[in-house]
């Protein structure tokens, strides 16, 4: 067990010291019983202190229950609880609270509320105490509004009218308008008055319209996020099958001549797929992506041998930068494919990465000195139109789309190629 050695040494040294001090140096020598007592006491303390070492390496340690969070004060909530999940995108507690506070002075009423289809979400104005968030909805008219989407007006405190069971409630009339995302009705906006003269329905309807617009935008954003995830899934699913076949063929050809090498290659192939398939996040450290590229290049070099040469020119400062996953490797793969595959001579691929601390951007350049491409081919592999027809186009067009979704105008991605001279892909990403 690790840690035993140092402890043995420490205990031995301790007893040597005790003997030295109590028996040799002291005059007269300490009695044996006292010496042993003191020695045992100090040894016990030593062992207690060494506990962490005695427990040995991490893997053999018994799994401990996760420690309770270190901050003594209640930490900030990391999510909004189960309710928030069911709620439409953009209708968070802060947003609705902010919205009712904004609407109250605008809408010529005494109180304003926002509800979803079943419960109160936010309320501002008199009656706030019993119309709190999460309280049930009373007005029958609202059920009709939620069903039909037509704006309703009520006045009077009867069972069929405002419907609030609280006797002291000051609300006497209301106008209720529907909130929608597209065609779907997802809740309501209500303006109340403490007099029997109800608020103007058009005004409430206009406010509900503006809120609906906001919700639609939020919904759109969440769809966009889903789209990015889908693009990543697509890339993961379409890891070039030719690469897999080629590598398997290479391995098969070596199993007899060099079984150890073949075994190494299989392990690397497993590493490769593990990384590619397990990426759930959109971003990873450049160091991870770099390791992935190295794995890939090892596999390709097994196939191409001396014909493929890869140079890495990477500032170590780049390694800790967060980059979108599965972006660098497809660039290298593209260079290998278009450089080495059609080339009988030796091909050099260069991967260069630098950070620019002034602009806070990451520059990645992948350059090959292979055969190059003509304009139509270039256009074909970098635009998405032909992705169904040509497997080789998946990489670059997919990357282009994902970067567009992730960074919008904040990135650069360009591909230049000259027949006979090779291809250069340059990527510039903001550092997060």
């Amino acid at each position, binding site marked *: 067990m690790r840690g035993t050695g140092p402890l043995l040494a420490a205990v031995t040294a301790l007893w040597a010291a005790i003997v030295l001090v109590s028996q040799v140096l002291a005059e007269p020598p300490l009695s044996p019983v006292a010496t042993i007592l003191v020695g045992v006491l100090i040894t016990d303390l030593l062992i207690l202190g060494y506990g962490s070492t005695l427990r040995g390496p991490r893997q053999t340690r018994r799994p401990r229950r996760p420690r309770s*969070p*270190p*901050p*003594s*004060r*209640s*930490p*900030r909530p*990391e999510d909004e609880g189960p309710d928030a999940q069911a709620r439409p995108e953009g209708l968070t507690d802060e947003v609705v609270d902010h919205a009712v506070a904004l609407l109250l002075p605008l809408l010529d009423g005494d109180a304003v509320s926002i509800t979803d289809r079943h419960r109160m979400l936010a309320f501002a104005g008199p009656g706030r105490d019993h119309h709190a968030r999460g309280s049930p909805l009373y007005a029958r008219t609202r059920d009709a509004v939620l069903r039909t989407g037509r704006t309703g007006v009520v006045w009077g405190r009867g069972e069929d009218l405002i419907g609030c069971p609280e006797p002291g409630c000051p609300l006497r009339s209301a106008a209720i308008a529907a909130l929608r995302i597209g065609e779907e009705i997802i809740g309501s906006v209500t303006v109340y008055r403490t007099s029997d003269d109800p608020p103007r329905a058009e005004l409430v309807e206009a406010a509900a319209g503006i809120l609906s617009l906001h919700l639609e935008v939020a919904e759109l954003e969440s769809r966009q996020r889903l789209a990015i995830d889908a693009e990543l899934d697509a890339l993961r699913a379409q890891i070039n099958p030719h690469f897999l076949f080629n590598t398997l063929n290479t391995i098969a050809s070596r199993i007899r001549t060099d079984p150890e090498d073949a075994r*190494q290659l299989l392990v*690397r192939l497993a*590493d490769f797929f593990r990384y590619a398939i397990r990426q759930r996040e959109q971003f990873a*450290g450049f*160091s*991870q992506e*770099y*390791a992935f590229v*190295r*794995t890939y*290049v*090892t596999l390709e*070099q097994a196939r191409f041998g001396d014909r493929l040469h890869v*140079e*890495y*020119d*990477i*500032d*170590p*400062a780049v*390694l*800790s930068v967060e980059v979108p996953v599965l972006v660098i490797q497809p660039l290298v793969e593209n260079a290998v494919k278009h450089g080495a595959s059609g080339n009988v001579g030796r091909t050099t691929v260069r991967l260069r990465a*630098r*950070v*620019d*601390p*002034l*602009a*806070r951007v990451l520059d990645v350049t992948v350059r090959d000195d292979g055969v190059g491409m003509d304009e139509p081919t270039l256009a074909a592999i970098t635009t998405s139109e032909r992705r169904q027809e040509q497997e080789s186009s998946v990489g670059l067009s997919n990357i282009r789309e994902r970067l567009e979704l992730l960074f919008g*105008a*904040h*990135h650069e991605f360009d591909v230049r190629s000259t027949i006979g001279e090779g291809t250069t892909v340059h990527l510039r990403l*903001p*550092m997060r």
Partner: protein
Amino acid sequence: MSGLDTTSLAVFGVIATLVSVLAWRHTRATTVDFFLAGRRVGVVTNAGAICGDYLSAASFLGVAAAVYASGVDGVWYATGFAAGFVPVLLFVAAPLRRLGSVSLPDFLAVRFGSDRVRLAAVIAVELVILSYLVPQAVGSGLTWELLVGEGIAGLSPYATGIVVSTVAVSGIVIIGGMRGTTWNQALQFGFLLAVVIWLAALLWSGGFSYPLAVEQASAAPLQAVVGDEIVEVVDRLDGGAATFGEPGARYGPVGQLALLVTLVLGTAGLPHVMNRYFTAASGAAARATTVWVIGLAGSFYALAVMLGSATRVLVAERADEPWLAALTVDGVLRVPEHALLVLGRLLANTPGMAIVAAAAFAAMVSTIGGLLLAASASFGHDVVARILRPGGGPREPVRAGRAAVLVVSLAAALVALVVEPSQLLATFPSLIATMVTWAFALAGSALTPVVLLGIWWPDATARGAVAGVLAGAAVAVGALLVGLVTGADPSDGIGAILLAPALVAAPISGLTIVVVSRLDPGPGVTVAVWTRMHGTAHDRQTERLARMTLRGGR
């Protein structure tokens, strides 16, 4: 002033070209792999880069000058600059890297989850950078004065040096050169270390012995030049005449303590040095890097101390040479900052001086570059892109950052021009090192407490952090201004604390953070941030990845 001859100009030019050409060399794959793996090659490269950012004119010219002027009391600068990395090693390096971000303000903003903290930190960072730039400009002025000795367009030689270095470095940074890549900075440091070792080797081969030199220098009372007069330095500890080999030539008891505390606390708050910690591969690698930094910087400073002592003896021995007579009064240098340059010429004639000057400029250029980049990044990205105009285009922060470079370097040059070294030399015998102390005091008072408490105290809140940063900066700036305006005596008592205020300002800042955080109902750290900062899962994953890469690195 001694002039420039063709040989020394040629040597200067060749070295400058060589260093810049070498800096363009590519990082080899193996270096990156070892870097990733946290192995020695990578760790040492990063440590060299940190030293390249850290060692400035203050270290190169200033430490030798301080030792030359005040003997053992000057050694405090060497000790303090190197010891500043001890708190970094023990308390800061690994958690800083593990939480990961791009700059010190960014780190604090993530830790406290607040843009106000970011803004407060940026204010402190810009102040530190400005006060750190001034001594670099003074250093380039003094070097120009000695090496070229002539002004351009009616300016004095000192002013010419400042203008040339400011225009050159800020121009290069703005246009887009000098990105301070790891390899580049490490090389700059390697050059500095090589020059110092070379000087030491020349000394030793000439039969030099450090103990003998100290003995020889301590034989007579320590002297200094004030104006054109030679005066005896008073011993601030025991009274009477001070000697080279005994403490007290410069600081009384309070002064000694204030200086050391200020230097030790300052390093953890230097933005351009701390920014580089984010490039370490893992928390463990960041810690290993710091150990190397302490070793490398420690040996550099030890040699600088020796060279300063050697200069004391050699200048006194050879003061009758005509070129040296112009620089000295009665065998004592008028400007102690000239010590290392003069030593270069004493040991290897004018080419020797040119080599030392090239090293001094390399030190200044790498540090100024690092400082300007940190200034522009924290203004452009932490202020403009995150707070002022979050929706702006991608070019906006870059333009703002360039403007910040221009403003900061102009301000520093102006201050350096206003500061007339010859007037301040009476109060501050080694001016550059003293001015750098002010920057360390600001960093140690405003930033170090919030970094330490932010990392180690989960209950520290955003309001507490803002209050602590502002309180620390205000106390430090106030103390320095009061001290400079009233012309306080920096050697002991109140004056020492006013001119090295971290001794008082850092505890005030820490206390403010604690009190405000206790009163603040706001939340402390989130579990996610705390886990990322102190957990080691990422380190282990990095190691696994590195093993995978190295295995296939054929």
